[in-house]
């Protein structure tokens, strides 16, 4: 019998199953194998330990979500909630749902700092990444509330300066900015900056998207863009198109825009790239296609299942959208 190396064993699916006691068949096989090859016990033991070391790690997403959840809890301003201590663990209670249980206060430090906006040396910047499929609430030091959309990166200072409240967003969010006439609130995005005076609005400014959009619900905002400044009034949206390098102020559907902050996706003659990007953020899927996909999709996606969404795309375009193992395959009809 040829020697097995540690790497070979770890690469062997059935061996990993054995280490994790996944099924009887693999366990039986490897127990027998070890009985027959006592000289391999050390190698197998090393491989087994390495498998456990690799498997028993939190994923990056798990770590981030848990970290945010803890911070959410301990930074909860004024309100101390006892952690849920239960005698009987019920796996049905997903840990993630806790995160959204109407918790208002929310503050997060990240080890990976985004510091290019630091204007005072003593202030710590906090960077928060929102995984696909998730929304996150953040409460800033001044009481401003931000609901971040999936796939966003948001950085903000632990405390604000006396002169200006600055944050940075690559992504989307619903902002309810604490009113303070003397200290403007400024959101920097890749394309433009939004200057705010106590107001609420949606901002969609993913670095990878063609479109940057500010939709104002209440109050007033000033948009600084390419050296120009534009005021928005409630009900108005500023939309910038990176491709055509043109921006315009338009009116928007307030009720629909409100739903955007609850996860509604809105498409208006959207091309394939945009559709794929947005669906990826919301549903966390990958895409695969061998043909150039030319679609123009208009419509909304709310709480539908991914399968319904793909069916809808299939019915309304010349392509077939099928889901296999978390990847959407697009084929021409």
């Amino acid at each position, binding site marked *: 019998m040829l020697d097995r190396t*540690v*790497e*070979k064993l*770890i*690469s062997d*699916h059935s061996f990993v199953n054995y280490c*994790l006691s996944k099924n009887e068949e693999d366990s039986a096989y490897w127990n027998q194998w070890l009985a027959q090859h006592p000289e391999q016990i*050390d190698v197998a*033991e*090393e491989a087994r*330990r*390495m*498998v*456990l*070391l*690799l*498997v*028993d*790690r*939190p*994923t*990056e997403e*798990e*770590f981030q979500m*848990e*970290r945010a*959840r*803890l*911070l959410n*809890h*301990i*930074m909860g301003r004024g309100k*101390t909630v006892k*952690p*849920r*201590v*239960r*005698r*009987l*663990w019920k*796996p049905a209670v*997903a*840990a993630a749902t806790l995160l959204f249980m109407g918790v208002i206060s929310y503050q997060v*430090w990240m*080890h990976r700092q985004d510091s290019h906006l630091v204007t005072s040396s003593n202030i*710590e910047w906090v960077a928060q990444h929102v995984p696909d499929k998730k929304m996150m609430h953040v409460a800033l030091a001044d009481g401003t509330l931000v609901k971040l959309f999936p796939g966003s990166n948001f950085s903000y200072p632990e405390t604000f300066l006396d002169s200006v409240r600055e944050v940075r967003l690559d992504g989307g969010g619903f902002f309810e900015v604490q009113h303070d006439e003397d200290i403007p609130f400024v959101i920097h995005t890749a394309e433009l900056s939004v200057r705010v005076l106590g107001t609420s609005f949606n901002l969609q400014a993913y670095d990878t998207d063609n479109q940057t959009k500010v939709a104002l619900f209440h109050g007033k905002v000033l948009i600084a863009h390419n050296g120009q400044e534009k005021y928005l009034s409630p009900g108005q949206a500023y939309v910038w198109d990176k491709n055509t390098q043109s921006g315009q102020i338009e009116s928007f559907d307030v009720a629909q825009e409100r739903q955007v902050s609850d996860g509604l996706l809105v498409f208006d003659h959207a091309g394939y790239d945009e559709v794929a990007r947005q669906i990826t953020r919301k549903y966390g899927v*990958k895409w*695969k296609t061998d043909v150039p996909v030319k679609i123009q999709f208009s419509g909304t996606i709310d709480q539908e299942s991914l399968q319904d969404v793909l069916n809808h795309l299939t019915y309304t375009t010349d392509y077939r959208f099928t889901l*296999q*193992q*978390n*990847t959407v395959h697009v084929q021409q009809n």
Partner: protein
Amino acid sequence: MKDTWLNIIKGDRASFLKLYDTIYTPLFHYGMTIRRDRELVKESLHILFCELWERRERLPQTKVDPKFYLFTWLKRIIIRQVEIPHSQIEDLLHEPAEDSIEEQRIAIEQVMDMHERLQRALDKLTKKQRRYIQWRFFEERSYEEIAELDNASVRTVYNVIYEALKRMRGDIAILQAIILIFSK
């Protein structure tokens, strides 16, 4: 670590987070050896750190390294949360008495060290290798699933993972480093 601990007692949140970032993964690993249930372990860790923060003023200004304290604390929380048959609880609770405190302390140091080395080994991998390792092991996906996810052949996925493991193994030199209480 000791300074971090003293700062936490004083209420320094940055130190608290530093501790969290350093020790979360080793604790997670340890929790999984007690009970292989990710959600349970995450919940227990959440409780551990909430309690730690809430009781910070009353924490012992320990003479020994505080890490040790956290591992035992986590174990107690896990036991508190699950219905482990009585005999097993006995085992778990008595186990520390069998190993000397010093042995356990060394064990914990080693697990910390191993995860640090694993992290360094992972950092050295190519992006693709890291992605595949993450899918294969952290998310326990099959080769077929990974091939599907990444539009690659199963053979390629296997080779990439094999090469990655080979590379990592040299960095980790694991065999010597593992210890009684963690190799249940």
